[in-house]
């Protein structure tokens, strides 16, 4: 095997690890920022690492059936696979770049797959809170997928491509970023992104005061650790995807981290100062203005 293959294999190993580290660190930073807004000092930034290590080191993990094993595994598979098909950096041999024609559509499916796996796993626990949480999560997904798909379709029509790499290639130079080229699609997508990140006002799935912790109610110890790992990787994957599509991608790691972090702050800061919608209110929200913006984006492109 030549060196490029080795580099590629190394990339397959490094990318998820980086995603995990960055995702978890972001989580820690978010906790600190939230704490500062809330007038307090907050935990150390490394706090989320200790949480996850502690969860992995739990001695017992009760499960209620085979599907509960598979739920978190589905979730983590889906997040890692999604990550593999999102170009992390532009034109880098080490960082994965498995882009192919149609990968946007593939990702649309892949990103749902994890949630469905989780739903199956949570369904088996028999906890009514999980069942309600799953129902809410799926309903919410139906809500935000509509503007998200509309936005992506608009972009795909506009640039006549279904590949992220080609989209990234289109946006060289600050003024060519898609956020400026197709602002309506961006607005629709970023509003959908708020729902995707499950921060308030769209945190119905995990609402503690209503349904304990939703789908994860019966997941403890290692299962929860797997879910948190998967969640961190998935967060990073989503951030990179949005950066790639709308913010012109990144040529080096520093740019990537700056861009993704700024993007991450949008749902986080919204979440800090907002209460949560009820499920039907959230869906109504998504089907109102975000959808309208998505349709406008398509109309502008088509006409």
């Amino acid at each position: 095997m030549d060196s490029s293959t080795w580099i590629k294999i190394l990339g397959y190993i490094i990318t998820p690890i980086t995603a995990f580290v960055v995702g978890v660190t972001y989580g820690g930073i978010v906790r600190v920022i939230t704490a500062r807004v809330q007038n307090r000092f907050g935990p150390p930034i490394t706090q989320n690492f200790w949480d996850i290590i502690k969860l992995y080191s739990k001695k017992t993990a009760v499960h209620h059936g085979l599907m509960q094993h598979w739920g978190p595994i589905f979730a983590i598979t889906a997040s890692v696979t999604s990550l593999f098909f999102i170009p992390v950096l532009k034109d880098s041999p080490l960082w994965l770049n498995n882009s192919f024609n149609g990968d946007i559509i593939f990702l649309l499916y892949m990103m749902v797959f994890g949630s469905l796996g989780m739903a199956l796993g949570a369904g088996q626990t028999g906890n009514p809170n999980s069942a309600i949480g799953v129902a809410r999560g799926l309903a919410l997904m139906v809500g935000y997928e509509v503007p998200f798909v509309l936005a992506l379709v608009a972009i795909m029509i506009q640039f006549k491509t279904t590949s992220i790499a080609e989209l990234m290639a289109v946006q060289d130079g600050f003024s060519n970023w898609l956020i400026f080229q197709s602002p309506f699609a961006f607005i629709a997508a970023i509003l959908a992104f708020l729902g995707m990140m499950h921060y308030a006002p769209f945190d119905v799935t995990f609402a503690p005061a209503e349904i304990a912790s939703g789908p994860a109610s019966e997941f403890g110890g290692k299962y929860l650790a797997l879910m948190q790992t998967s969640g961190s990787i998935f967060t990073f994957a989503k951030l990179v995807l949005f950066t790639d599509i709308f913010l012109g991608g990144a040529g080096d790691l520093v740019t990537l981290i700056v861009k993704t972090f700024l993007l991450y702050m949008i749902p986080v800061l919204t979440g800090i100062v907002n209460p949560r919608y009820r499920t039907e209110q959230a869906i109504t929200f998504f089907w109102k203005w975000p959808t309208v913006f998505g349709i406008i984006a398509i109309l502008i492109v088509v006409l």
Partner: protein
Amino acid sequence: MREKETTIYLGPQHPGITGNMMVKLKVTGDTIVRAETHVGYLHRAFEKLMEARTWLQCFPIVCRICVPEPDPNEENLSRVIEEIEGREVPERAKYIRVLVLELSRLATYLLWMGGQSGSMGLYTMPQWTVGDRDYILDLFEQLTGGRVYHMYIWPGGVRRDLPEGFGDKVLKVMDYLEKRLKDYDDLLFNNALFYKRAKGVGVIDKNKAQEWGVVGAPLRGCGIKHDVRIDEPYEVYDKLNFIVPTYEGGDVWARAMVRRQEFEQSISIVRQVIENMPGGDFYNKIPNPLNWRVPPGDAYVKTESARGEFGYYAVSDGSLKPRRVHARGPAYVHGVSLLERILQGANIADVSFIMNSLGTCPPEIER
């Protein structure tokens, strides 16, 4: 789709439940068909214990009846003893009592604001308000020595005089709270999302409110103007200027706005009390507490606590110990029968929301 009826147990271990109680819900989809409250997890048999203690020994017990706001309980027990005995209270003590009661009302409202917003996922608000509540608890600590339980109001007056410079400290805290109220407005009361969540949720029928035993802010949220402080003025409330706000609608939103207005009124009452504080004695001496026989008789007194009318019925048979002390908290009606009634047809997402807006406080239900 055919909707199946499922049973959901909310509590006793559930982050959305205020305290330790359980609500058993029969739901189809997201809608509650029937709600059943189960209480008794906090039963400590206080009323039984009080029958075995002397009158003064009852004070550490009554303040534990309602944990978030212990002072109305002390006030009630003091007043009920004073009424049976016919004991006079000096003017200064009355003012100090009003000060303590209003401070405790402010503290409770701050806690309620946190609970109300925490139950709908606005976690910044509880961090702010519970933190600010500590300024009031610090005042209590200086005044009474206790953060949560004070045992400060006694029959015949209060236990201690105000420390030096206490008035200025109180005014400073009041200024701070008034400043913070603007932040609370921005974050919670003027938040469009809060309005959307709260409007039309947990509606109490105005025509039925009195018959159902609704009191306090929920009653005033129905547009009915009743407040024990005005209906049956105790201490010096008839000498103070304050308005009793009412809102129409009877929903969570109206109750929240009533409480928000009362928060301002309480600040103003505290200021008036500090301003008009008379000199003189703060305490009428009672006999040796171990040999203190309250003459036979019975009385019912009530106080407007932050959650509504708080009544005490006490009977003395002339012995050293009370024959019976019965506490009637607002949550006894709000948290059990009223909650069951207005949860019917509500969304599961709103259970904890409605519970908070009614001021459900389980320790006071089962005592």
